[in-house]
């Protein structure tokens, strides 16, 4: 029985994907709250650096997980937030279609910040946080 539970947990663990918040090398040591503020565009500059958050497309699993984990708002609340912001002249973060694009963007743009699967991250970018989602 124990063995089964262990195997199951191992299997579950194996299925759970690990994600990472990545940023350009100049952007380091951000708190979770700062990350939330950045993706809500409440925080745009840090130490003279223009911070550019990059989202993945809507209905992307990774994006939903990220928003649940860091932004802490569900889809409908976010929608209403951005529609209000829209009238104030603020737009939601730019969207890259794929994780690869997002990664490339972070590599190329100073102050860029995004999130990708951990296994896609190479050495050039800076990993701020890691989290995993079991898909529950």
């Amino acid at each position, binding site marked *: 029985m124990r063995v089964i539970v262990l195997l199951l947990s191992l299997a579950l663990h194996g299925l759970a994907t690990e994600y990472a918040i990545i940023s350009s090398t100049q952007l380091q040591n951000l708190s979770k709250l700062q990350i939330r503020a950045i993706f809500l565009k409440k925080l745009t500059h840090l130490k003279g650096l*223009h911070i*550019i958050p990059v989202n993945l497309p809507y209905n992307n699993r990774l994006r939903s997980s990220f928003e649940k984990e860091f932004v802490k708002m569900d889809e409908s609340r976010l929608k209403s937030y951005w529609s209000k912001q829209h009238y104030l002249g603020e737009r939601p973060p*730019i969207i*890259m*279609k*794929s994780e*690869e*694009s*997002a*990664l*490339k*963007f972070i590599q*190329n*743009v100073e102050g*860029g910040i995004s999130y990708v699967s951990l296994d896609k991250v190479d050495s050039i970018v800076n990993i701020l946080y890691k989290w995993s989602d079991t898909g529950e």
Partner: protein
Amino acid sequence: MYNVLLSETKLVDKLILDQDRKARQVSKLINAHIESLEKEVMFLSRLDLMDDLLAEDIDKRVSRLLKQRKDDYGLDLEFHVLSSNYEILSSSNKTMIAKQFMFKNKLQATQGQFYIDKKLYIYTKIFASFENTKDIGFFILEYNLENLKFYLEHSVNEYAYMQRDDQHIGVEKSFNLKTINEKGVEILKEHIVVYQKMESLLEGWYIFYVVKKSIALEFFYEFIRFMLYLSPLLILLTLYMSKKFSRYIVSPIEELTEVTDEIVVSKDYSKLLYMSSSDEIGRLANSFNVLLNTTDKTLDASEAKSAFISNMSHELKTPLNAIIGFSQYLILYEKLTEEQLDLVSNIENSSQYLLEMIHGILDIAKIEAGKVDTNFQLLDCEKIAKDCFMMLEPLAYDKDLKFEFESKRCAVKHIETDEKIFKQILINLLSNAIKYTKEGKVSLELLTRDDKLIVEVKDSGIGIEKDEMGKLFKEFSRIENEISSEQKGTGLGLSLSKKLSHILGGDIYLQSDGKNSGTTAVFFLKLKD
């Protein structure tokens, strides 16, 4: 021929105007097209999607968009998106991706255009959507100007092309024009070329409109040829028509003329015209007949009058002669008392006056009946005038008048005229002048002026008011004045003289400045050359 040439130049002018309008229109269309392309470039370059450049467009989203736009246009054009270091990141043409853009040194400004051969490149820098000062690459439209062929007309008669330096779009053929201005027209041997400069993005290009003269004017030449062929036909038709209509129009008129000529010659006014037509000519003939009828009647009446007067005069002359004769016999041979002498003298005077009048009437009747016999001879006019002058000198002498004769201004010596009538006129005029002049002088002058022999009889007598002058030439009319009551006169003298002068082919008129300022009677004859 002049007209033909005129219409040809007109046609050419119209052609030029037409071409010019077309060129302008097409130039406008092309400009609008190019401008719309430029706008497209601006629009696409500002899309948020361009941020993908920063991810090197690895998702191919930009490329897909560019391909789609290209397909939408369906023209020979390519969109390229370059990174800041001129690498082609995205393109509507897959094969271009990852290559270096060949003309990177042309990308100097934020936006602009340049030409490489027939390709127009419109470019603009791309800025990041999140930071509008951060340029992240270039957006380039590579447009093949051959696309514009679509706008350039081609037909047998005319074609259009564009030219910039040695680049042509449209036909390959071009014309070496002497000078090229902003716009202009050149009429070559076989072609008419209208050109104008193009604007904005197509600066440096010219649009040319060419018309082949022979073809454009073909219709015109065809028309002239047609007219040439047709003209003999037209002439024939005209001849035929004129011949046909002359029967209706000319022949009645000819008939009319014939009859009138005949009437004039024969003076037989009883003739009539016979016209069957009821048109204008028929009416003219009718009216003419009515006129003839009236004239005939009038002439009959006039003739009857003349005959009556002439007969009466003859009948009157016989007893008058008896009265005059017996009166003179009484005065000369009977011892009459003063009183009786006065009475008989009165009878004789009155009878003389009556006789004079009858002679006058007879003369006039003769003239009116056209029965004056004339005998035209070459005569010494000065001698005749002098004779008349001498004849009347005693009368002037009686009244103590200065009486002068002058002929220095007369350039002719001989004149062909009737002596009797000429003399009669001169005597009439002279005696009139003497009659109506109390004191002063009467002069007779013979002169020539403007092919005319003029006899002027001037007096310093009573003169005539202008409005009464016309009256003088009427029969039996005399102007009432102080002298007329003293002078006897029949009132036939001037009228007779005028009629006689007409017979000689001349005329008489009077000149006077009014009462008491003298009168000049002028009698002139046309000199035959």
